[in-house]
């Protein structure tokens, strides 16, 4: 009788096939570099810049970029745009990431339960998902934001509530196919409880698509926050966010275009970077596309 020969060393996760494929995806790597740089700048930048984001210097109003130490210029109140941009980045990125975490948790939960239970439980959960998808989410966000007190936490929750459906659908489809696999049957044979099978046995196998969806959700959440804040229902000044910086800029589009260009470019950068990462992850985690 043969004995398992396991002399070769165990492979580490960073030597895995998915990581190798991700590292070969150039756009995704650019995305990772840009997001890392942006995050570091937002975390550490405000301490390094000479001006505070709330410091008002009326003599230096509407200074164009590269005037003195105002590297990105100043706004109508003479506040340093670089400082405000980075402080705004903290808010916007945090709202984006928190909204992603909340919506992914909610979506994954609904998806796993609907996919595993099937029957009327699954059907009614998925019809609920359809109902949420049927609302134009932007109006839902605006209506909720108009009714509730628009604090960053509230905005995060509102965005999460309107963007969990995609994750739920992806997870439901994945779990439905995993449910028929023999290892799930084996779990039932061992007498494991339903929740154990759903969350401990099946869910880890659906992580690939969840991670991809989550990355794309961050991009969406950042965009949504900017949109709502731009319309004046989101993060309220003086707390800066990329969206309300754009809002403040619209009156001066002709005279001081940098007020809009700077946050605009930053939003574009952040959103495209997250989308690149999402695409890279999809290609890396999807076993069906291309050679290893």
């Amino acid at each position, binding site marked *: *009788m*043969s*004995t*398992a*020969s*396991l002399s070769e060393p*165990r492979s580490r996760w960073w030597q895995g096939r998915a990581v190798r494929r991700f590292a070969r995806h150039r756009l995704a790597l650019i995305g990772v570099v840009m997001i890392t740089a942006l995050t570091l700048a937002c975390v550490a930048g405000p301490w390094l810049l000479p001006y505070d984001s709330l410091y008002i210097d009326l003599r230096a109003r509407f200074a164009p970029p590269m005037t003195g130490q105002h590297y990105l210029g100043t706004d109508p109140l003479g506040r340093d745009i670089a400082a405000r941009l980075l402080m705004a980045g903290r808010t916007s990125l945090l709202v984006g990431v928190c909204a992603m975490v909340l919506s992914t948790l909610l979506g994954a939960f609904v998806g796993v339960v609907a996919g595993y239970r099937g029957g009327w439980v699954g059907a009614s959960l998925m019809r609920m998902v359809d109902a949420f998808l049927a609302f134009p989410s932007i109006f839902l966000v605006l209506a909720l934001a108009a009714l509730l007190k628009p604090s960053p936490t509230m905005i995060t929750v509102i965005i999460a509530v309107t963007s969990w459906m995609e994750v739920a659908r992806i997870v439901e489809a994945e779990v439905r196919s995993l449910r028929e*696999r*023999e*290892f799930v*049957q*084996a*779990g*039932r*044979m*061992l*007498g*494991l*409880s339903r929740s*154990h099978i759903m969350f*401990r*046995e099946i869910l*880890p*196998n659906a992580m690939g698509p969840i991670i991809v969806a989550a990355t794309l959700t961050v991009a969406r959440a950042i965009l949504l926050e900017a949109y709502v804040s731009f319309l004046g229902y989101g993060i309220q000044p003086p707390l800066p966010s990329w969206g309300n910086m754009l809002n403040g800029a619209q009156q001066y589009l002709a005279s001081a275009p940098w007020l809009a260009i700077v946050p605009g470019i930053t939003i574009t950068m952040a959103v495209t970077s997250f989308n690149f990462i999402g695409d890279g992850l999809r290609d890396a985690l999807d076993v069906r596309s291309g*050679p290893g």
Partner: protein
Amino acid sequence: MSDSGAHPLQTADPAAPQPVLSMRDLTVSLPDGMERAHAVKGISFDLLPGQILCIIGESGSGKSVTAHAVMGLLPPSIKVTQGAIQMGGTDILAAGAETLRDLRGRKIAMIFQDPLSALNPLMTVGAQIAEVMMAHGVGTPDSRRARALELLDEVGLPDPPLMYRQYPFRLSGGQRQRVMIAMALALETSILIADEPTTALDVTTQAQILKLIRDIQARKGMSVMFITHDFGVVAEIADSVVVMEKGHIVEQGSADAVLRTPSHPYTKRLIAAVPHLTGTDRAHPVAAPAKAEPLLRVEGLVKTYRSGSKLFGTERVVKAVDGVSFDLWPGRTLGVVGESGSGKSSLGRLLVKLMDSDSGSILFEGSDIAALKEDRFRALRPKIQMIFQDPFASLNPRSTIGHILTVGPVAHGVPYAKARASAQDLLTMVGLDAGAFGRYPHEFSGGQRQRVGIARALMFEPKLLVADEAVSALDVSIQAQILELLDKIQRDTGVGMIFITHDLRVASQICDEIAVMQRGKIVESGPPSQIFLNPQSAYTRELVAAIPGEQPGS
């Protein structure tokens, strides 16, 4: 590895016919990072006209790569680095894409293991046969149609005009394979490559397809290169045999010589591992304990599948299990044998209650578990365990072997340390290293994984073990080892076993009693000696007769 056992057939003899296909010193490289550098290395053989050449080997032996190299169908990452394949006057390896395309279909045709995925689901089978001729610019639409009808008749399909208009999904597996053969014959090819064409088929269908291939080969004088892993099939149809192991030819020669007097140890081992039909009953060291009560008594078990809608009158009712009754005594094995669709797997699922039965009773140690709700039955689950068919799908790829083994007992309140200790003991018992505990399933081969699956089922010290096609996905040499292991476990623990299989030869190895199922019913049951030597029902006789390469009782 030396090629000492390999003697390419001598073609120097002037009287010997020219080979239609000759392979010389072929080496095919695999991309970096695979388990070995070459898919096949330095293989040479000849395919003589009008001959059936079987290439036999276990999974990973390179037999399929060889076939694909002949067709010029290797994926771009796998390259032929050395050697030549001569066909008539052309060197296939040097030929351009156009020449190759013309050769395929006109000179060489191939049939595949899975005829459903090899046929286009959106085209009628008639159109697909005609398409082969159209692609090579042969005939007019009318003549192609006439020829297709002729071919459908030739491969033994009933009512060709009707069959011509059918879509592949309407046909059975055997009928689809016949269509594939008809496509291969469309242009009167001289070489047919058959890549495991009967592996996915039931044993009676397999016998028919083998007969068809042999008949057509004899009638048309074709040469057939037949790839298989089953020595039974080789014994049925081969004129000459090439035995491959890990990319090398270890032995080749005429079928008689290789099967009767194998010279290479690997061939000997493979032939010895082939399960044979034993007409003898299983010996037990002690006579059956005279227990008043069987471990399991199943009475009138019924499971009906319904699909479609009653409301719209499209309801289809299939009786998967139709009034099945049997007894199982502790320490004994009942084999449940049948072809696909016979309801044997449904029966297994009903017994471990992965599925609820519609009526009937399952008396386990005297109490009826058929009607128990899942919550109540959970406490009994440890006593009834199952071994699954597919060792790749039945282990959670994200869990360590340790987790897979201990999760069940821990969920039933066994302290982790105790579960861990017994898991390590069991790993040793099923022939694995105790160090396997912390590793993931993908680090193991199919046979090793199946051992893990067996260890998982034994964690609870069950009273009843249901093995659903537990060795079907394994190579023959591994199969023999797993059967031996199951036998040893039963002798050591006295567990009662239900062994579900489509393979009568395997069933004859391990079962005390065999129940033959057909369309949800048990048509015959009895000890192996009765089933194989003196079958009572017509269906059992048909099954036994269809086993490739066997004379019952020999």
